[in-house]
Structure formats: structure tokens, C-alpha cells
């Protein structure tokens, strides 16, 4: 029953076969989230576009869609952040350095680097939305001269939810990153901004020609877009990184559909002007 030669039928191979990766490093970053650094088990270089996704899997448990959380400019390893929400993520988050993980990817369409180059770029990340956008943040900071102003807004529910604390410390110090952060609720040690992420628009002047990338909980999108509109930023210059229920990641299973589009192959990054025509998007 099992065929070995199906090269005629599908020259690119079997889209459901993952590749093995090794865990190089793992850190608990919040109560629910762990940050993994991985390398391909066969030693091959890591190639993808910032914003692309992968299916992370453990045999016997299943697969989950995850965005790359590091930039392809760091080609020997890549990062992912796994939040414990179910069976697969729970099992992955029990793994340690040296263990194997399996991935299928890169999948989908990432951030439009060509459209961002030589422009002011604003990234608005809410909660775990910082993980997939970190692929772009790192890319921009690695190739800083290719972009004009770089502004980063990061909002979380409370200070304990903040991830990538080392990165944050660097962004705060860097004079070519305009970093602003806020929390919905502070704690006794918190000295920074308290309030919703849109409040951060008051902290800086944006040009109408800024390119904006937004990633976060669905509820956040509409409010952030409204702020962009006030500054005169056009819908076609706003990009949204959408999360959907994904299963196959290759445009077959139907789970990630947004009207007639598939988040997994048409996205996960969409131009806001295109999403406006999709009633189910937001």
C-alpha cells in the first residue's frame, strides 16, 4: 500500500512530512510561555521570511501553527515561543535542551519587506503578538540602515506578561529604536505607562507615510487602525498579522478560512486594504 515513488504526482514531495529540529536553548519567559531556540537536525541553514509560520509538532500529540520569533538574518538557529494552551503545546513545553521537535515550514506569506524598506516603520504588538513580529523587529535592527525611523509599541495585560526582557532592555537603550510600552494594569514595581496600547500614539509624532505592522488580540486591531487613520496613514500601508485556527498550514483543511481566503497560504500577513473586503477578518 505504501508507495515510495510519487515524484510524478507531487514533485515537491509530501507536504505533510515535517523535518527534525534540535532544541539548542529553552527559557521559561512567563508563567505559560517558553522560548525555544532551535536548529535543523541536519545542520542546514534556516531560510524564511519574517512573519512566516510553521507547523510545530510532536509525534503522538499533534501539530500547532507558530510564527518564527527570530529573524532569518540569524541563519543558524531560529526561535519560537510556545504558550501552553492544549495538548500539543503542553507536551512541547515539557521538552528540554537536546530534545527533538518537528516542524513543517516555512509556510504562508510574511511581512512585505520590499514595501517597508526606506520607510518609517511602526510595529504595534499586543501580548503574544510580540513573538511573530520579533522576526521583523530583529530583521530591522540587524539591517537598520535599510529602514528609516523604527518605532515599536508593545502592550501587555500586566508586567508579568512581558516577554523578551533582554531585548526590551536593548531596545530601550538603542538610539535608533523608538520603543514605547504600556500595561493594562501595573503592579507595585511598575513605573511606566498604564493604559491601552492606543495611548502610546500620544508619545510620538508619526508621518503619514509610515508603514504599520499590527499583531495582537483581534480586539486590538480596530482601535489601532483608527489611530493610524487619524495620522493620515493609508489602509494599504497597514499590515495585519492574523491568527486563525490553522491545522494543515498548506491551504487544504479549510480551518483557517476568512471568507474566500486562507490565513495559512494567503496570509498570515494581510494588507488592511485587502482585509476590508473580508467581512470575517476582524
Amino acid at each position, binding site marked *: 500500500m505504501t*508507495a515510495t515513488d510519487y515524484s510524478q504526482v507531487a514533485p515537491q514531495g*509530501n507536504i*505533510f512530512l*515535517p523535518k527534525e529540529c534540535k532544541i539548542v536553548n529553552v527559557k521559561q519567559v512567563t508563567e505559560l510561555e517558553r522560548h525555544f531556540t532551535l536548529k535543523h537536525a541536519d545542520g542546514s541553514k534556516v531560510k524564511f521570511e519574517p512573519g512566516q509560520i510553521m507547523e510545530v509538532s510532536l509525534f503522538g500529540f499533534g501539530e500547532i501553527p507558530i510564527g518564527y520569533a527570530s529573524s532569518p538574518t540569524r541563519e543558524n538557529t531560529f526561535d519560537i515561543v510556545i504558550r501552553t494552551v*492544549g495538548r500539543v503545546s503542553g507536551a512541547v513545553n515539557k521538552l528540554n535542551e537536546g530534545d527533538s521537535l518537528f516542524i513543517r515550514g516555512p509556510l504562508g506569506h510574511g511581512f512585505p519587506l520590499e514595501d517597508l524598506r526606506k520607510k518609517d516603520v511602526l510595529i504595534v504588538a499586543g501580548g503574544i503578538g510580540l513573538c511573530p513580529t520579533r522576526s521583523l523587529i530583529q530583521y530591522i535592527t540587524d539591517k537598520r540602515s535599510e529602514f528609516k525611523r523604527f518605532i515599536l509599541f508593545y502592550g501587555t495585560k500586566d508586567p508579568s506578561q512581558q516577554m523578551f526582557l533582554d531585548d526590551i532592555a536593548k531596545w530601550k537603550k538603542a538610539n535608533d529604536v523608538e520603543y514605547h510600552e504600556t500595561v493594562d494594569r501595573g503592579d507595585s514595581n511598575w513605573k511606566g505607562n498604564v493604559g491601552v496600547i492606543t495611548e502610546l500614539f500620544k508619545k510620538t509624532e508619526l508621518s503619514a507615510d509610515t508603514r504599520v505592522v499590527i499583531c495582537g488580540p483581534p480586539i486590538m486591531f480596530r482601535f489601532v487602525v483608527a489611530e493610524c487613520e487619524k495620522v493620515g496613514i493609508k489602509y494599504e500601508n497597514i499590515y495585519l498579522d492574523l491568527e486563525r485556527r490553522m491545522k494543515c498550514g498548506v491551504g487544504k483543511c479549510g480551518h483557517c*478560512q476568512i471568507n474566500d481566503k486562507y490565513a495559512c497560504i494567503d496570509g498570515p500577513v494581510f494588507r488592511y486594504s485587502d482585509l476590508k473586503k473580508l467581512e470575517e477578518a476582524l
Partner: protein
Amino acid sequence: MNPYFITANDFDAFVTKMSKDKKVIGPKAKKQKFVFGEIKSADHLRLDYDVTILPPKKVFTPTCQTLVTFDGDKFEGNVDNDGVILFGVHFYDIRGIDITDLLFRENNRDVNYLAKREASTIVGSNIQNVSKRSFWGSIGTSDSGPKGHDAFLTKMDGGYVLECLTQKGEDLVKFGNWSKASAAQVSEAEKINKDVMDKCSQKLSHSSSEIAEKVRNSFDNQELWSNLAEDCFSCGSCNTVCPTCYCFDVQDKWNLNQVSGMRNRYWDSCLTEDFAKVSLGAGSEENFRETRGERFRHRIMRKATYLNEKLGTPACVGCGRCSAACTADIADPVNVINKIMEV
């Protein structure tokens, strides 16, 4: 490629011989209804069926299909490329297969579907009895005929005409006492297939393009969709029986040893409550199609508008299976669409 003729007397021997050589899947009786199943001899075959309970889609997309097998950290793909002869398929079900062919081929070719599909032979057959709920006669345009079959069989007085369209179709002729069909027999077959087209008692009242436009423009009519879906049980039967529904879920299963196992795909239904639900952790979740109305709308949108441009036809082939399968009797595309057209 040639048209052939066989007498009614010789036909049974042909079927039996063919089924000795290769696995043949065709329409069989099951109590008062019909199903596609393995045909081992001619007396199993019921070409006089009106419609089968399930479409033949399960041949190429089984209800449970193993994609990958694993043993510890070792794994391999599990591709079934055992071709079958799918025999006696009505034209609307061939169109259903044409649609899944296109969708599994586009973007990323899905070898787990295509390997078996491309190794198989499909033989269509004319509709001898029309099912009560079907409406294939009023769907599509003149160029929306079936494409993916290898041969087409038409029953007429005294025997059958077999029109071969591919080499795989031609290869079947060796199993029986086929002779070249006369021009008169070929035109008789054409007439039979043309005449049946207005035998459906159910009809859509508008053209596919009019329907596509109106249905799409009704997207925001919340009241309409929640009324249409009011009695929906979210059971997903309308998806299960549909020849053009192919959504799936992927799940891993352990063998008893808890070391080896497999990654399988299973049929899934967009009408069920959990289809578009994601858990976000810490007890919260998000459902991208939370209400019955939203899910019902998604199915109708997909059948009547979303895929039309890509397919050149709607993604509903008019088999009427969903109408018959729906306990609440609300799934019938004829009722739904004719109602939308009146709004």
C-alpha cells in the same frame, strides 16, 4: 479515442472480468438505498441507482487517512497509490471529483489525495433514475460538464455505449466483448444524457452568476442568515454527504505501545461549533464563526460564490444529498438560494 458498444447479455461478463483484474468500486444496494462499495461480480452493480447516500469522495479522501507513521522520533509518509476503477459515477459526482482534484492540486499538491486519484480510473454512467431532491439540471453553464473521467457509459435499448476519453478508459475494453459503436448508437447515447437534464423536479430559479452575486451581497444580512439557520443542530451532516466538502482535521494516534503511532486526517465539518475555535490559553478561547448563522452562511457562500471564479462553476453540483441528510430539513440549497434570491 473510440466509442464502443456491448450487448446487455455480454455486459455482466465484462463487469465480472474487470472486477477480477482490479478493485472496482461502484453503486450497490444497501437496504432501500444505494452506496458506493466494492463490486466483486456483476450482480452487485446497481447502475439504476438514483443517488448514493455518500458520494464516492471517500475513495480518494477516506474518512480516516494516515498521512505519516512514526516510531519514536523516526517517521515516514504513508502514501496510498493503489489505483481503483471507480465505476458508474453520475456526472454530478464526477464534477464533484473535478472540484476536489483542482483544490488538492492547486498551491501545494497534496500527494495523499493525488497518488491514488491519479492511479485510478473513473467511469461515468448515465442517470437512469432521478432522485427526488436533486437539482443538477439547473446548475452551471453548458461548459460545466464533467472532465475528470476516463470513460462514460450509457445504457440504451439492447446494451451500453462506452465513450472512452483517455487511455485508461480505453484499457477497460479488453475485459469485455466490446465492438465499435455505430454513429446511431453514439447519438442515441448523447440524446439520453441530454434528455435527462430536465428531469429534476427541483430547480434553482436563477443562473449561477446571478446567484453568486446576490448571495455574496447578502453576506451582511444577519437576520436572513440567522433565520435560515434557526433550526440548525450544527451536526455537520450536510458537510459529510457533500461531494465537494473535503475539510479535515489532523490528529495523532498512539499505538498501544505509546511509542509508535500515526498522524491521521479525518473528515471535518464547518457547520460544527468547534470548527473555527481556538483556545488562547488560561481558559480563554476565540471562535471565528461562533453562531449557527455564521456557519450556515459560510457553507452557502462556499457552495454558491467563493470558489466560482476558480472553478468556473459553483461548488455545489446539485446532488441534493444535503437536503436529504438534514434532520431539520433546512440545508436544501434550492430552498436556501431561492429564498435569498427573493429577499
